[in-house]
Each structure stands twice: as structure tokens, then as C-alpha cells.
């Protein structure tokens, strides 16, 4: 029997034609996550936040109306009122859903004309960086696009993770203590470690194969290569779940830092018919107490903030509500010197069809209040990044919606926060511009080509350079 020289796993990787490829080394990934944000450079992070239905232009100019919850962030926030493109496919709210945060004409009702801005930046800066899409997806069932905010380069969507418990499993499952931990005194310890090493080698081979098919050496055309890249990106998102570390991960505090103390897996709030909140066009919206909505969203916001703080997520979207504003809220909500018991129909129907902007104004205050809660979590000085700044200061957060007032594609509210000094904060502008102008200014802030809109011919309507520091 002719045996060849022994290969270690690393030798195997080097010998498998992958010399020029930067593999995500296990040691890097398996390092205690709490330490990553503390010891290394500050990571690039870009997150979009979405709320549905839109704001009346008169509510966008100050922090006295529905934007009041953002008052604590007034000097960190650049506010815009942009014109949105409207696609030809899908009814109202569907046909702007695939354009918000994308800036290209839709391919079809649920397929965008290009990547969302977060994915565009991710692809340019760090294609292996993890993405999280989560939040409240409840919608009326005219189209999936109402609940889609993050799109791949080919326009296909990355749907939201719906329940807080699912977010927890997806993001933190790989770094939580092993449910079947290796006992150092176990006589089978070495067998378990060997099993993990083999699992890792299997995954390395799989990833290398996808890497090849997505590379310049691939026999595939552009669109097929993109599919291979997307498959690889999906593997990377759950890499440690698929192949646990072959060493026991110390989930300590990362050298005294408290930034990434992961708590227990959350329980999803007990809400009747939780999954029924996607309902058919023409059906009555199921009622839900606004306090329940807030409870679920706060859990999502807490988990998203923790994931960013722990550097387990760098790109994606947190959504307060799907496009269209179809939640039917109940309970008394008071703000801005007024109150409402909500009208017993969806916000969309009372807002647009029953001409009751009073309810919509309070509803939007609730929406902004919840997004402000997320900003507070990111801006907590108790959990600074390695440079001493808050996550909100270093990361870029783009807030936006799909419409202006009453299905208008004009005056669509957007706001930019953070950005690590790239952007000028603390202003409102009434300059006329298209969403592509704002999205391209953001790309320029990252020193990336301002190519949003070019793929499908969305025209510039102004200048957003006021954003650039």
C-alpha cells in the first residue's frame, strides 16, 4: 500500500489550488466574539431602517411632529425628502418597495433592478461580511415586495427573519455555548475534536468549490457565477453552525469588555395568530395592540444592536413595518399633545381612504419612536467600539420609507446617521433630488463609484453632496 505524506487540514487547503484565495480562517472566526470589536479595527457597518406608508412633507421639517422621537439625535441626523421612482409592476406600495434603498427600476414586482445599498457597499468592502434582515414583516398580501428590503446584486431578495427567537438562533446560535459541550475530562474528547476537524475540512472543500465556480476561472457566465457567490455567502452566514470550532470557544468577556454579553434566548411574545398577520387584499386587518407591536420590535431592535456590537452582523435591514402600513392597531396612544385609539382599520386605510391624518400622524410617531429606540441602543456609550465611539457614530444608518404623502412618489423621507465621519450631520435639506442622488452621495462617502441608477436608467434630479463632510 503506497501511502502519501501526511497532510494537515491547513496543508490540504494550501494544496487544493486555493493559494491565492483568502480563506476565512477558523481561528479568526472562532476567536471569542466579544473580543473582535474590542481588539481589531472598527468594522464597516451599514444598516437600513424602514417604516411604511410615508410622511406628510409638513411633518419632515422639524422634530416637533412625528419626528419628535429623533430629537436626541438631531445633531447626528441628516434629513432628506427625495423623489422615488415608481415601477410599473405591482399595485401601490409594491411598485416602490423594490426601489427603496435600491435606486433602480424593478425587474418585476418582487425582483429589484439591482442590489440594495447595504449589499452594494458590502460587496465592495467585504463580500464575506454577514447580513441580517429582520423586524416586523406583517403586511397585506398584495406582494412579497412589501416586506423585502434587502436585495442581492441580481435583484433577488433576502427575506426577513421574522421572529426574535429565529434571529437569536441565526446570529448567536453559532457562538453560544455548545448544547453538547466537549468535556475536557471526557475520554472521547479527542474523538469529538476529530469529528469537528473533519466537519471543518468537509466545509472547507465545499466552500472552495463554490469559490471556484464564482471566480474568474469558472466555466459559468456572469449570472450563474453570481448564484455561486450567493450560495457561498449563505454558507458563510452560518459557517460556525455548520462546522463548530475544533477548540472549545471561550465565551468570556473578551478581556474585560462588556460589549458583547449575550443573554438568554428570548421568547417570542405570545401574540395570537402571530403568523396570520400576512393577509389577503380586501381582508380586514387583524387587530393588534400597539404595545404588543412595540414589544416585538424592541426585541428585534435589541438583538440587532447586540449583533452589530458583537460584530456578528455588519449589513442589512431592520424594518418597523412593511410597506403600506397595514397593521390595524388597537389601544390608546398619546404623543405630541394628542391621542388616538386608532381607527379600527389599518393605518393605510384610515390614512388614505378615510382621510384621517390625525391617526396617521400618531401612528408615524409610534413608528419613529420605535426606530429611535434602536438608535438609542446603538448610541449607548456604555458599549463603545474600539475607537471609543458609539456603534451609531461608526456605523451608517439609513432610515427611509417607500412613499411621500398619499401614494405620492415625491417627498419621500430619508435620513442618514453615523458613518464614521464620512457624512455631515445635523441638518434638514429641502433640496430637490431623486433617491439615486442620495444613494450615490452615500457611495461617494465610501469612495465608491456613484453608479446607483445607471443599470436601469434612473435619472438624477438634483444634488445630495450636502451630505458629504
Amino acid at each position: 500500500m503506497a501511502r502519501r505524506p501526511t497532510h494537515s487540514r491547513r496543508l490540504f487547503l494550501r494544496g487544493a489550488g486555493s493559494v491565492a484565495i483568502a480563506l476565512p480562517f477558523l481561528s479568526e472566526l472562532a476567536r471569542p466574539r466579544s473580543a473582535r470589536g474590542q481588539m481589531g479595527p472598527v468594522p464597516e457597518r451599514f444598516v437600513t431602517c424602514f417604516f411604511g406608508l410615508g410622511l406628510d412633507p409638513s411633518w419632515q421639517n422639524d422634530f416637533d411632529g412625528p419626528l419628535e422621537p429623533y430629537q436626541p439625535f438631531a445633531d447626528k441626523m441628516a434629513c432628506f425628502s427625495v423623489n422615488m421612482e415608481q415601477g410599473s409592476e405591482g399595485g401601490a406600495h409594491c411598485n416602490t418597495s423594490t426601489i427603496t434603498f435600491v435606486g433602480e427600476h424593478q425587474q418585476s414586482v418582487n425582483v429589484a433592478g439591482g442590489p440594495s445599498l447595504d449589499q452594494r457597499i458590502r460587496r465592495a468592502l467585504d463580500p464575506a461580511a454577514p447580513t441580517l434582515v429582520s423586524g416586523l414583516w406583517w403586511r397585506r398580501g398584495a406582494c412579497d415586495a412589501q416586506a423585502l428590503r434587502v436585495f442581492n446584486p441580481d435583484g433577488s431578495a433576502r427575506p426577513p427573519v421574522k421572529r426574535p427567537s429565529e434571529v437569536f438562533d441565526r446570529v448567536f446560535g453559532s457562538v453560544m455555548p455548545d448544547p453538547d459541550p466537549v468535556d475536557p475530562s471526557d475520554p472521547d474528547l479527542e474523538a469529538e475534536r476529530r469529528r469537528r476537524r473533519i466537519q471543518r475540512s468537509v466545509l472547507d472543500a465545499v466552500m472552495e468549490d463554490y469559490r471556484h465556480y464564482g471566480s474568474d476561472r469558472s466555466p459559468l457566465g456572469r449570472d450563474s457565477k453570481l448564484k455561486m457567490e450567493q450560495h457561498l455567502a449563505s454558507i458563510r452566514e452560518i459557517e460556525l453552525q455548520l462546522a463548530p470550532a475544533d477548540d472549545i470557544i471561550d465565551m468570556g468577556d473578551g478581556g474585560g469588555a462588556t460589549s458583547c454579553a449575550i443573554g438568554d434566548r428570548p421568547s417570542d411574545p405570545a401574540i395570537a395568530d402571530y403568523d396570520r398577520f400576512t393577509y389577503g387584499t380586501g381582508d380586514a386587518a387583524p387587530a393588534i395592540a400597539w404595545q404588543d407591536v412595540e414589544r416585538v420590535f424592541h426585541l428585534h431592535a435589541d438583538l440587532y444592536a447586540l449583533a452589530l456590537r458583537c460584530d456578528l452582523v455588519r449589513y442589512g435591514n431592520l424594518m418597523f413595518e412593511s410597506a403600506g402600513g397595514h397593521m390595524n392597531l388597537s389601544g390608546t396612544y398619546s404623543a405630541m399633545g394628542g391621542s388616538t385609539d386608532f381607527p379600527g382599520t389599518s393605518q393605510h386605510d384610515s390614512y388614505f381612504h378615510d382621510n384621517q391624518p390625525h391617526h396617521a400622524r400618531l401612528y408615524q410617531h409610534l413608528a419613529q419612536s420605535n426606530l429611535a429606540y434602536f438608535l438609542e441602543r446603538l448610541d449607548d456609550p456604555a458599549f463603545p467600539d474600539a475607537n471609543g465611539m458609539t456603534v451609531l457614530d461608526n456605523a451608517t444608518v439609513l432610515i427611509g420609507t417607500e412613499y411621500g404623502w398619499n401614494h405620492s412618489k415625491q417627498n419621500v423621507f430619508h435620513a442618514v446617521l453615523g458613518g464614521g465621519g464620512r457624512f455631515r450631520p445635523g441638518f434638514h435639506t429641502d433640496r430637490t433630488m431623486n433617491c439615486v442622488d442620495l444613494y450615490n452621495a452615500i457611495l461617494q462617502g465610501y469612495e465608491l463609484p456613484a453608479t446607483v441608477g445607471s443599470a436601469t436608467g434612473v435619472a438624477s434630479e438634483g444634488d445630495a453632496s450636502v451630505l458629504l463632510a
Partner: protein
Amino acid sequence: MCAAACTGQIGEKGDLPPGATRPGELTAVEPLARRLTREEYGHTIADVVGLTLDADALGVLPADRPIEGFANIASGQTVLPDHVRGYASLARTVVASPEFAAFRERLVDCADTSAECARATTEALGGRLFRRPIDERERALYGGLFDTVADEYADDPIAHEAAANAVAEAMLQSPGFLYLLEDELDGEGTRELSGHELATRLSYALWASAPDEALLEAAANGALDDPEGLAAEVDRMLADPRVDRVRERFVRDWARLESLPDDDGLEGELIASAIAFYRDHLAEGGALFELFDARSAVLTPALAEGYGLEPVGDGLRTYDLTDVEGRAGLLAQPGIVAGMTNADGGEIVARGLFLQRQVFCGSPPDPPASLQDAIDEFVAEQPEDASERDIAETRLMRSECGACHSQFDPLAYGFERFDFRGRFRDSDDHGNELRVDGWIPATYDEGGVEVGYGDFDAYVALLADHPRVQRCFVQRHAEQALGATLERGQLSAAAELADRLGPSGGHEDLMRLLVLSELFRLRAIPEDD
């Protein structure tokens, strides 16, 4: 619901009527890398490894959701972390099974960790799982994995088994197994598929599964390059009962049966009866286009009662409808009616849109957003006890609605005596007597003539003989077989197939014509790569 300016309709890119073409257009498709559907994954493992994965086992994979067209059309497929997790889990399940151990032992005739055996093992597993011989790169990659795992076990007697299993586990998650891949950069314009590429297209088109060893052998020895050899293989495959899988798959996906709501506990019976009608008619040699007006139904007792028939026995039974009016053909099967009614917007609109897309291969535009208020207003002003037909005719009279609705609403008029679950009725819930007269709009007629029908039986007879319906039906079969949406010049190739099939051609004839055609055997090379 109504819609205004009817833009984006028949005649635009990707939506030429069946048979139309533009000069100089290629008739070959250029399929993207396409992922096995959940169903294809299960069939492939069953046929290659011998392990049957039940619905629970396959349930670790997300359900296939067609974004546009059939679930196996590559352009509509996405891959999510849940897919990746599912594939990893299934790979471990497969490799740990006794069926896989038997498969491995049958395939590999050595059991040591020598270089020779490592190579033989890797090549044998790859050749079967990737449906073609592995290349040098793959030999190095998976050979390296074999060695790494073998080294972990040193001289342990299970070293070969552990190494081979690790290689198979990786291959089962790799592009070569999970995706149907073709060389997309070889040549310019169009090219003949290689033998192994053609074998894979054939097996997934005719069996929804991987090539068997005989087909791989035919690919390897060049038999598929020879017209007689290819025809012989196709005949062999068409005689195999696995063809029933693609018959079942077609009607299930074409009629959107998987998305039937669980309203009354009958969705399983609705699906099974529709599939059985289509499959049995074709398996028994019935002509493809006769499906549209065949005077029979396959029903369970509950469905028979809803159909106004006296049940004749338990389970699915075939009912002769020769002397029964108003219920003939594929489109009248309760499951098909339920599937076409399963959408927002009222029965006539939902059915009309289905018929326009799936029977006439038109592409209805979505209503413009600017009309949302007008739509709501229109709905609100209709009397509560108005019949669907009355509402539809009122809608056609409104200029902002009629432009588009005139192209699909009348297609649904003939179905008014079926309720949303396919039950036969004479009047609606408000006591309105139901009309079934209607017309096929002129836009679907080559001569531009509107063709009327007086009742349902006359309507389905018209459909069965309608050139556009026949070409569309063939187009949809071809799209599923190829895993690609046909457009431009490919449509004329599909239309030619329909014409050649003729009124007496059956499913087997269609599939033979299709897989032997250039549309199937050639590959177009993307221009921009």
C-alpha cells in the same frame, strides 16, 4: 379590481405569443446554473443512492417557491442560509445511512487509503454524484479531503470508510451535485451539448432525477452524439415509469396546486384528483390537447358530490362525463378550478389572469398604483348582491378598467358555474343564476377575430383546438423541461413542436419531439461573458 393603460402585454420582450418570432433570433436557450428543487433532490438521492427521503426528511429544505413560472426555473431561484443548513443536514443523513454504505461498496472496489484507492474512490463518487467524470481540479480538491480524513484515522480499519464518507458529504453540498451546470463560455452563438450535459438535461426533463448508469454510459461512449443512439436512449427513458414524476410535477406546478389553501380539509383530495386526471389521461395514451375537453373526471366521493355526481366508490375513481354537461376537461377538474381561483381580486379576475398566463401565455400587467383609489371606489359602489358576471361587465364598460380586463375577464366567464373549490352550482350565494356564455378575445386569434361560446362544453372544445392554446401548452411543458423561460426565437421553436405534435400526439410524443429538438439539444452562449 380594474386596471388602466394595458402596458407590458403580449408582444413585448419575453412575452411574444407562442409561435411569434423576430428575425435572426436564436432558438437555443442559455439556462443559468439551476439548483435542484426539493423534489428533484429527493428523487436524485433515491435513484442514485437508493435511500428514500420522506417528506419530513426533505422538510429541512425550504419549500420551493416559484417567483416567476415553475419552481425549477433558475432565474427565479434563490438560496438562503436555511437551504445551506438543510443541504448540510441531509448530506449527513444520507452518508450515515445503510443505503449509502451499500452504494459506496457497490461503487468502489477498494477499501484502503492508498493513493490509488483514494483516486478511485473520489472519481467513482464524483462521477456518480456530479453526473460526469470529475476533472483535475476536483480530483485535487476532493482527493485532498480524502487524505486529510484518512490521516485523522491513521491505520484504523475504518479510515477508508470515514474518508469516502467525508468526500461524499462534501460532494452532496457542492455545486456539481446541487446545481445543473453547463459550460457557459465554450464557443460563440450556439453549441451542441456535451454527452454528459445532454444526459443531465434528459434525465431531469424526463425523470426529474439524475441519469442512471446506462445513460451515463451512453454519454461516455458517445452514443448520445449519434441520432439513432440518442433516440434509442430517449425511447428507453420514456418507457420508464419515472416519466410519471414529470407528468405529476407539470400539472401541480402549472396549476399552482401546492398553494391551495387549507380551507375545508379537501386540499389533498383536490390536488390528488387533478394530478390523477392529467397523469392517467396521458399515461393511457390520451392526446395532449384532448386534455382540454376530455369528458371524464377523477374524483373522490366528496369531490364527486360537489360535482353533482353520485359517488361510485371509495378513493379516486374515474367518472365518465359523456352525458354530463358543463364539466368536461382538465380546466374543469375541481383542483384546477380551485387553483386558478386561489388569488386576490374576485373569481373572474383571478381565473381570467390564470387563463391568460397559463393557457394563452399572455402576461397581464399589474394595475397601476395611480388607480388604487379608483379600484377601491369601484369595489365599494357595486351592489352587495351583484353577481360576479354583472360586476365584470360593468368593469369592462369603464374605460380605465376595460382596456386590460377585456383581455382576461371573458376567458373566465365560462367557469362561473364552479365555485372557488371547484364545486358545480347553478346559482351564486345571492341566488343569481349563473351565465357561462362568453368569448375568446380577438387578441388571441391570429386573424384578429373574437370567437364566442355559448356554454362551457363549447368553450373547452374551442380551447382544445385553439392554436394559441396548443402552442402555449407546449411552451409551458418545454419551459419546465428546460428549467428556463422561453423567449424570443425559442417561442417559434416551441410553436413548431406544437404544430408537429398535432391533435393526436400524446405526452410521450411531445417529450420525444422536445428532447430531440435543437431547442433542447443546443446551448446558447451568453453574449456578454
